[in-house]
């Protein structure tokens, strides 16, 4: 049971957006712009950053749903996302992605934890201003979503199968419905 009364039958963020429908357009537009853009980072890379930050925040719903979306976009092996979460430095991700995940890791701790050296390391691997910007904002956005769900005690009724089904729906239709 969540801490407030949410409309029945709507999992995760869907229940919160149904409780406060006026918030849905900006949150969905923001999520779509950040996670569905293909300028710079790919959709799979964007989702991977979201799943990684959600796992650092230990947000069960977000790390599973966005992990599944990343997996489907990247067409990666079953354990790739798990490897990113547990030890991204030895995950087989590109050096650029590792440097961006390092930035995301700092953002999760707090904005001031991002250092000029970390940004420079990402640039040396070819990251552009836009990619650095998007990495920071994706990591920050998941610090919002993770707290919104967990702060209101929203529980998951999902199974691995329903996470995959919901992820497939996001891959095909995006976040603006």
């Amino acid at each position, binding site marked *: 049971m969540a801490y407030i009364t949410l409309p029945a039958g709507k999992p995760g963020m869907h229940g919160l957006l149904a409780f406060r429908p006026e*918030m849905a357009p*900006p949150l969905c537009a923001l999520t779509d712009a950040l996670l569905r853009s293909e300028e710079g980072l790919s959709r799979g890379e964007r989702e991977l950053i979201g799943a990684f930050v959600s796992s650092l925040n230990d947000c069960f719903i977000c790390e599973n749903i966005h992990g599944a979306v990343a997996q489907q976009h990247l067409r990666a092996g079953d354990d790739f996302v798990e490897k990113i979460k547990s030890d991204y430095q030895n995950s087989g991700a590109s050096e650029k992605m590792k440097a961006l995940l390092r930035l995301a890791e700092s953002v999760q701790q707090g*904005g001031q934890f991002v250092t000029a050296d970390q940004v420079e390391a990402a640039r040396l691997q070819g990251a552009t201003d836009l990619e650095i910007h998007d990495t920071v904002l994706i990591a*920050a956005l998941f610090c919002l979503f993770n707290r919104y769900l967990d702060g209101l005690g929203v529980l998951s009724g999902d199974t691995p199968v329903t996470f995959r089904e919901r992820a497939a729906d996001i891959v095909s239709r995006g976040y603006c419905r």
Partner: protein
Amino acid sequence: MPHIALPEDLIGIRSLVNYRPDTGQPLYALAQILLRHDSPLSTGERELIAAYVSALNACTFCTCSHAAAARYLFQDEQEAVDNVLRVYQQAPISEKLKALLAIAGKVQADARTVTAEDVARVRQQGATDRDIHDTVLIAATFCMFNRYVDGLATGTPSPDDLNAWSVMGERMGTKGYVI
């Protein structure tokens, strides 16, 4: 120096929303709805929660600007704002707002630590589902804005430049969040 090339004539969140307007527009719309549209919490109370969470995140730009907006909106009770930022438990604010600030603080530190007891305590002070929802979402949203503004090292006036913050607070209090 910001970590990326941002518009040089702008500071803080404004430099970021102008850098990438397709994310900037929904970010400002989110702030406007959350902090200005209807809520059982007053606009001043919502700005105060935003300033409190930003102070816990040590984000100078968001703390100073939202504290200034809260001071503008609280008008002749504006000393409450600085009292909240020092020790909110002793500030001249309602018991309901104190209990909501306790929840906001937990959301900032680690949202999983919010308990049913915390929620029961705010309900005893008269808080409704919407009070609780808006408090959690404001706290969560500022955990995003704070990280965005500081994670890219955007320009920030000195905390001591009281005139600059006061002008900003009045603009936020009158115009709200428009790009």
